[in-house]
């Protein structure tokens, strides 16, 4: 019985992890930038959901629709005005720059929202549903469904739309894309905007389940790292594969080794994958 419960937990959590990681993976894959603000974007999204729910009673699954454009614009401007100036710099500079930006954003959130923990509690609490004594909370199911919808939407965008094809082209080979007439700087800005929108939406969904505080941004960022490396970069399937693997490892690990070893296990797994299979489960070798 317990095995089924762990499996279901891992499945549900895995989709959430995928949703947390997909924006980060897109920015890393396309712009070749490790975006350390990603965690704080998620927390900002959670605050937005908290504000909308308490002030205007807009439940999170609708708030996602509000969050996406807002965060897209935020991401687009941030890339255009700040990140674009150092986009050709080595990883050292871009990574440290996003670290600096994260310090600013995180500190601003502590300053304006005060650091204490907030929890978005839906007044008609949704309780949980149980299928032959495996119990799953409804709000988590909704978040997982929305997460899958979000990743599916991105998958379609990348596959079907012109912008999507251009983004994938830039990810595969920037120089070739330029020759094909792709306006790379604007694609960078759009991709970063998309990444921020995905982070914001993930944050809104997380607000359903986890407490909201600027201090959780590093936890979200850590998960995004591990999921990207395990699953493989810049692709939706990679994020899903990585998310599910991480959730399974943490679930099994904490059951048999104790919860405090779960995080250790995930980072050890990260290093093993990095050394043996840097392109991840489903990624393709051949790009930095």
């Amino acid at each position, binding site marked *: *019985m*317990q095995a089924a*419960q*762990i499996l279901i*937990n891992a499945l549900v*959590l895995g989709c959430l992890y995928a949703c947390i990681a997909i924006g980060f993976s897109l920015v890393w894959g396309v712009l070749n930038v490790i975006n350390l603000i990603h965690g704080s974007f998620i927390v900002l999204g959670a605050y937005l959901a908290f504000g909308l729910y308490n002030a205007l009673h807009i439940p999170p699954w609708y708030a996602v629709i509000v969050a996406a454009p807002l965060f897209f614009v935020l991401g687009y401007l941030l890339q255009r005005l700040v990140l674009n100036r150092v986009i*050709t*710099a*080595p*990883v*050292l*500079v871009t990574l440290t720059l996003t670290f600096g930006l994260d310090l600013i954003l995180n*500190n601003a959130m*502590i300053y304006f929202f*005060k*650091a*204490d*923990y*907030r*929890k978005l*509690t839906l007044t008609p*609490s949704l309780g*949980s549903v*149980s299928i032959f004594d495996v*119990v*799953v*909370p409804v709000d*988590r199911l909704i978040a997982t469904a929305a997460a899958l919808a979000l990743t599916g939407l991105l998958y379609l965008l990348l596959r079907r739309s012109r912008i999507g094809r251009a983004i994938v082209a830039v990810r595969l080979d920037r120089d070739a894309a330029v020759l094909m007439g792709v306006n790379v700087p604007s694609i960078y800005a759009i991709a970063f905007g998309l990444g921020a929108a995905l982070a914001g939406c993930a944050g809104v969904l997380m607000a359903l*389940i*986890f*407490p909201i*505080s*600027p*201090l*959780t941004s*590093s*936890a*979200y960022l*850590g*998960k995004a790292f591990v999921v990207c490396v395990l699953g493989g970069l810049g692709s939706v399937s990679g994020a899903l594969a990585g998310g599910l693997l991480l959730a399974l490892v*943490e*679930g*099994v*690990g*904490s*059951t048999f080794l*104790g*919860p*405090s070893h*779960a*995080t*250790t296990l995930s980072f050890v797994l990260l290093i093993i994958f990095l050394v043996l299979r840097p392109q991840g489960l489903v990624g393709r070798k051949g790009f*930095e």
Partner: protein
Amino acid sequence: MNQSWVARRVRRSFPLSAAVLALGAQLSAASAEDVIRFGAPLPITGALAPEAVKQQQGYDLWAEQANKAGGVSVGGKKYKVQIVYTDYQSNTPRAVQATEQMISQDNVNFMFGAFGSGAAKAASTVSEKYKVPTLAATASSSQVYDQGYKYLFGTFTPNDTLTTPLTKIIKTKVPDVKKVAILARNDLFPLAIAQEMEKSAKAEGYEVVYSEKYSIGTLDHSAALSQIKSLAPQWIFVTGYTNDLLLVRKQMVDQQMKAPVVTMIAGPAYQEFIDALGPAAENVSSAAWWHPAEQYDGKDIFGTTANFVKLFKAKYNSEPDYGQASAALCGALFQIAIEKAGSLDRDKVRDELAKLDVVTFFGPVKFGANGQINSLDPPVFQIQGGKPVVLFPQAIKQGDLKIGVN
């Protein structure tokens, strides 16, 4: 990927102007006419930031009351009170640096300890060396007071004073409790409480079927909780800070975990915990070093507990919890000691603190030889009907333990 863009070695014949060390060193020390300055290092940023807000509220309330009453009388002369804050970023080494900076640079007269047992302990080494009396408002672990320091005092009784009375109540009130599960945050204070709990439980003959730690920043506890659920303990004991306990409690409800007794320490005492969880907080039991329902008639500036609660609500319009109360108490105790010593001499004030035996709004205060208070019975309480109800000590009992948490 060729990295010559920045990493190119730049040949330079002569470096920048002289080292900037001098730039950072000096800060003008405020002129100290008749003002008593108290140093208060707080984790304003970083993981413990929510606790800093509470501590500051306690200190400010006392300072305001003291100054409103004309200040602290030192040998007949009235001195204003000023509290010097600094942010040590929830980083213990920074707390040590902040303590030394306040003592040697800002020339504070006395010190309030940093938040929590770890930082308070590390910083106490510095204040001990400078022989500055320090009152730690939130350091409960006995390890903090095991270095034989003379200038360190703490207003929280040892951790076992929380777990032992609780275990006794459960032993008498809930006879069918046999198996106990303990889940603790891997941090000094929560881990120390969990270890004390394990001792008290085993002393009462309970079988501890699960005793594990969860790492700081864990987002998802469902794996650990489902394992606990499969062991079906009657008593689930979880330690951590407000955020962790909110998360654990919510995920227990998500997994429909039921148990006759669920105890959580250091969360339910906070109003945010009750507001955030609503019905899920029902019947969760806990223990803390102080509770607004207590009725003590103190000799300190606040007088009765009720008066303290009234003043606190007037200033911050929220129920005070034990963290805020303890911070205000430290101010009040310093005031009593200074007025008794009749001087700002640190050794005299220290001796007064050591000899202290006074009833305050917080309860009877008497420090043991190691500086840790040993005269209080921390109240045990349970959340009933959305309000914390005191179960122990007998003097302020408000209700009986309700069984069954779902």
